[in-house]
């Protein structure tokens, strides 16, 4: 493995939760500066893979290098290499939007001047600036999601993980986010690893795609290569050809179900 060229290297990675094998012997690499999409139905193992890459979960077996470091034995070095937008909420509801941003910036040692500039720029871009001094618990679901993404973009890491970042956002906001990320990736050679259920996003933004189902990588390559392999016209059709059309329920804990209901009511 050549860690100088590759931002992420994964070899024979496995994660088992008791009897469930969430990630089943996957291997792939992501080059520096590349935008890479990790696609798969609900429960395919995408978030579990991201958790192992980002030091939140120890693999059952296999070999992982992130920015050349091992997430199990060199946790702090790995954590210094990446930024992440989680699939699930991760804001502090009892703080204001500005505080959430500012503390994140301090935690990641973004110098004061640059921190203030970027916070203002990002909050303005996501139309949260006027509400910056309100507690996050007064925000709507869409506003919280925008703030999560704004916070993820505050410190420019060498690798950026985005786990279904644009769920529930309108097309205008989604476009805005991807334009920003593409530009950041190009100008600062940031590697981007993202998951999404919007195939048009993946086709438009990602230079390379891997399709994962039931914990296994079923195909990887550029969007065009996948279309060619499956003799289909769009990435969406290629995705369906590879993963089938059965609907997957995301398994939710009783608590997260409860919270979902609360959010719908709120």
């Amino acid at each position: 493995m050549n860690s100088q060229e590759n931002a992420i290297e994964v070899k024979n990675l496995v994660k088992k939760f008791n009897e469930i094998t969430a990630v089943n012997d996957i291997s792939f690499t992501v080059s520096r500066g590349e935008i890479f999409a990790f696609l798969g139905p609900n429960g395919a193992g995408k978030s579990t893979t991201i958790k192992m890459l980002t030091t939140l979960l120890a693999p059952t077996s296999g070999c992982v290098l992130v920015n050349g470091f091992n997430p199990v034995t060199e946790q702090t070095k790995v954590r210094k290499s990446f930024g992440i937008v989680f699939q699930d909420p991760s804001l502090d509801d009892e703080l204001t939007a500005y505080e959430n941003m500012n503390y994140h910036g301090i935690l990641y040692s973004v110098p004061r001047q640059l921190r203030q500039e970027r916070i203002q720029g990002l909050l303005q871009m996501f139309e949260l600036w006027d509400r910056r001094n309100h507690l996050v618990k007064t925000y709507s679901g869409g506003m919280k999601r925008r703030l999560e993404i704004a916070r993820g973009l505050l410190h420019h890491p060498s690798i950026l993980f985005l786990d279904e970042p644009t769920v529930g956002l309108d097309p205008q906001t989604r476009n805005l986010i991807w334009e920003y990320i593409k530009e950041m990736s190009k100008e600062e050679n940031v590697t981007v690893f993202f998951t999404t259920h919007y195939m048009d996003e993946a086709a438009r933004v990602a230079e390379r795609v891997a399709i994962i189902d039931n914990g296994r990588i079923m195909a990887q390559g550029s969007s065009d290569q996948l279309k060619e392999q499956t003799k289909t016209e769009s990435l969406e059709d290629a995705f369906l050809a590879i993963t089938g059309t059965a609907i997957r329920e995301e398994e939710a804990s009783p608590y997260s179900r409860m919270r979902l209901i609360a959010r719908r009511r709120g």
Partner: protein
Amino acid sequence: MNALYVLWIRQLKRYMRSRSRIIGALGQPLMFLIALGYGFGAIFQRAGAGNYIYFLVPGVISQTILFTSVFSGSEIIWDRQFGFLKETLVAPVSRFYIMLGRTLGGATVATAQGLIVLLLSHIVGYRMENYLMLPLAIAFMFIIALMFTALGIAIASRLTDFQGFQLIINFLVMPLFFLSGALFPLSNLPKSLTIITRIDPLSYGVDAMRGTLNNASHLGLGLDMLVTGTLTLAFLAGGSYLFAKIEI
């Protein structure tokens, strides 16, 4: 340093913004002081043990610090459920500093809470024996607060739901409090109870409070310092070990 600051200030802000927590945490000790202080005062005096309110104030301050600290430590359960824990677990600093920042924040809040109770107790007529001892009393408050915040973090690191918090309160905090001598004197106890009170770390905290506030230590401030200091370091070490192993 950055991480310490962020996690510390966050605890403080959350505390200041949660009025119900402030009122609850102050209401309970005041209730103890007034109900027990006046309720048992006469019996206590007749038994020749002096003024019960004077006796009770250091115990109630210790109780406040215990409850507030363990609660702050247990906030990890909330942060896990509401998701913010992840943000701190991937932060680009050693998790030891994250844990330490949280502990310092929780301990600062608990110490402030203890000081407020001390202040309020003056309304019911309490006076310190010697106000020059105040800095030492505050130092002890802070050590007790660190000890139990770290203990709360250590335990909460292994718990994933709110039921776990109920367990902590019922099977840890309540016994620690009732067996500490916060409400009764440590002298002339049955042998078995003496042994139990000597095992309870809070006993040494209560005794240190009594020593510094009332000049009436039973065990000696030196021993109190040794035991609470050692346990604080042990709980910090254990807490940061368990915190570093959290998986999501």
